[in-house]
């Protein structure tokens, strides 16, 4: 079994949000409720200012607090270490959202982040809370894995594009969009990253590119103090702090 992980190179990332857009299209996200987002920060004031940005998917923790707190096991971890939500079992208690240190979970029944509410323009039927004009092929949908159009009353999160990566050929070290053999199985955010700031592979495979990058460029994880052990690593070239200062103000 692979242990899928991601590496994001902050020196290469331009903050273009292509990953965010691709994720939204791939996973039928509501506008503004991005499983994958790029967060922008500013510190200081003009002319002594620093701007920074941080791409932030779900950290797919090895030791996920969202899994421990979920009273129904709706949030669970697959054998290959991906944290998913079973929408058939989710009761919408939002305890996982309270317990997630990274703020990467989304409840369906909230005010729209972007007005007007697109759900009203594209009403859904059956389990589907809305009917996105852009949406993944029906055969990919799997409510037991939190893949598809999010129903009402449940929480959703980044699946590492599980409908793709779970189909990858056995034993591959990396899922790389540049490799025609693995392109189709690569998560959407990695596939579209133009400056190639994102890498995806098996953290348990010593031959994988992700392991090489983490070792050679000093990959770090966010909020290590929580003990959640993310499987998303950041590279910053060692020059600047990876995580924008905690006291950064909104930009």
């Amino acid at each position, binding site marked *: 079994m692979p242990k899928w992980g991601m590496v994001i190179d902050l020196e290469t990332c331009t903050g273009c949000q292509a990953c965010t857009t691709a994720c939204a299209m791939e996973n039928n996200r509501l506008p503004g409720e991005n499983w994958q987002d790029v967060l*922008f920060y500013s510190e200081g004031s003009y002319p002594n200012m620093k701007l920074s940005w941080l791409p932030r998917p779900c950290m797919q923790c090895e030791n996920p607090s969202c899994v421990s707190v979920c*009273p129904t096991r*709706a949030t669970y971890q697959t054998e290959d270490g991906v944290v998913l939500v079973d929408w058939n079992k989710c009761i919408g208690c939002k305890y996982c959202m*309270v317990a997630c*240190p990274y703020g990467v979970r989304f409840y*369906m*029944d909230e005010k729209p982040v972007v007005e007007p509410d697109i759900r009203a323009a594209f009403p859904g039927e059956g389990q589907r809370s809305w009917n996105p004009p852009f949406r993944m092929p029906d055969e990919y949908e799997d409510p037991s894995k939190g893949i598809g159009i999010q129903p009402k009353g449940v*929480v959703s999160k980044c699946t590492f594009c599980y409908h793709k990566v779970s189909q990858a050929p056995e034993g591959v070290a990396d899922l790389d969009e540049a490799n025609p053999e693995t392109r189709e199985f690569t998560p959407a955010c990695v596939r579209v990253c133009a400056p190639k700031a994102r890498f995806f592979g098996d953290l348990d495979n010593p031959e994988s590119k992700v392991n090489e990058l983490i070792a050679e460029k000093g990959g770090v994880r966010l909020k290590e103090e929580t003990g959640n052990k993310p499987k998303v690593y950041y590279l910053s070239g060692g020059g600047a702090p990876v995580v924008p200062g905690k006291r950064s103000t909104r930009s």
Partner: protein
Amino acid sequence: MASMTETAPAVERGNHFQMHLIVALALVAIGGGYALFELLQYGKVQFNTTNYGIFWGFPIVVYDYFLLTSTGLAMVAALYHVFGLEEFKFVAKRCLWLALAGLMGGVAVLFLELGNPWIALWATPLNMQTSSPLFWKVLLVGAYTALLAIVLLGTIVNRDDRRNPLMYAVGLLALLITLAAGSVYGMMAMRPVWFGGQLPVVFLIESFMGALAFTVFFTHLKNGFNHDTMRPQTRALFEGTLANMFAISIALHFILHAGRVVTGLWSNAEGFQVWGHIVASPLFHFSMWGCIALPFVLMLLPATRRNGMAQILAAALVMIGLLISRYEFIIGGQQVTLFKGSWSPEILSYSPSIGEWALLVLAVGIANAVYAFAAWKLGAEEHR
């Protein structure tokens, strides 16, 4: 014996409870009607919670407030049923009915807040996620509800005040629910305002203190807020043992609350800046001084603890103050986001929507309706 029977004539009593029931049902109609209309028409998007920080809003505050009041009341009843404190005999049955009333009010609000409440009924017990405090809370509340209902059924059938051995289990479950409710917040190591092993104890003290306030208030309400019609034993209890317990629990609550506030204000750690925000609000000072310090003084001074109006005032202030501090605690714990982004200001803002307020009205209405009906028809206020 005069002292063993009600002082108010039966007919008058019936009218009194009927009136109470009518008012309570009106509250149910207003609060429930508005909340249901909003939920059916627009859904929960009308609540002021968001995906960007404030996930648990006012309905959770109301639910926890009513649930912990219920468990506290069961513990007060256990003082008679389990520990044999005879002084509490004449308030024990009232406490048990109020415990059921509070429970029903709180659970009703929870059902309207949850995304899929009916799934919770089977998915929680069947999936055995023992690492989740909520799993234990749901399981314990289920057992507590069933046993409390059986105990109360016994009081309807027998119409007496005999000690019930089942109350050992009810009392224990009430205690465990209260501790589990504290753990739901206290175990969140990633949330500095909530985190701490002392939280279950804090919840226990608050629950007991709130229950004493409700006991005092509803006993006076039953007597039409007329101190003179109160049973002598109850009056002695309210001026003696119960007043002492009430004063001590208020003092403990004050110490624990003030301790957390001072620690929070002193610390530079990320997340604690919310304490500065809380302390800057007039609501905090009203709850701290008006709803904790003042009731403590009222219960401490011999002249005021013997005065019916002072008892009612102290009880009412504590009931209000607890709701405020529960609100500050639950919302405040989420106001500094754990992971900031461009969307996140220093302190997130939140205030309940009209629909969320309506749920409080609904809970108050349901709880009062259950109690008033039990008092009117099911012998909740008869003693033998």
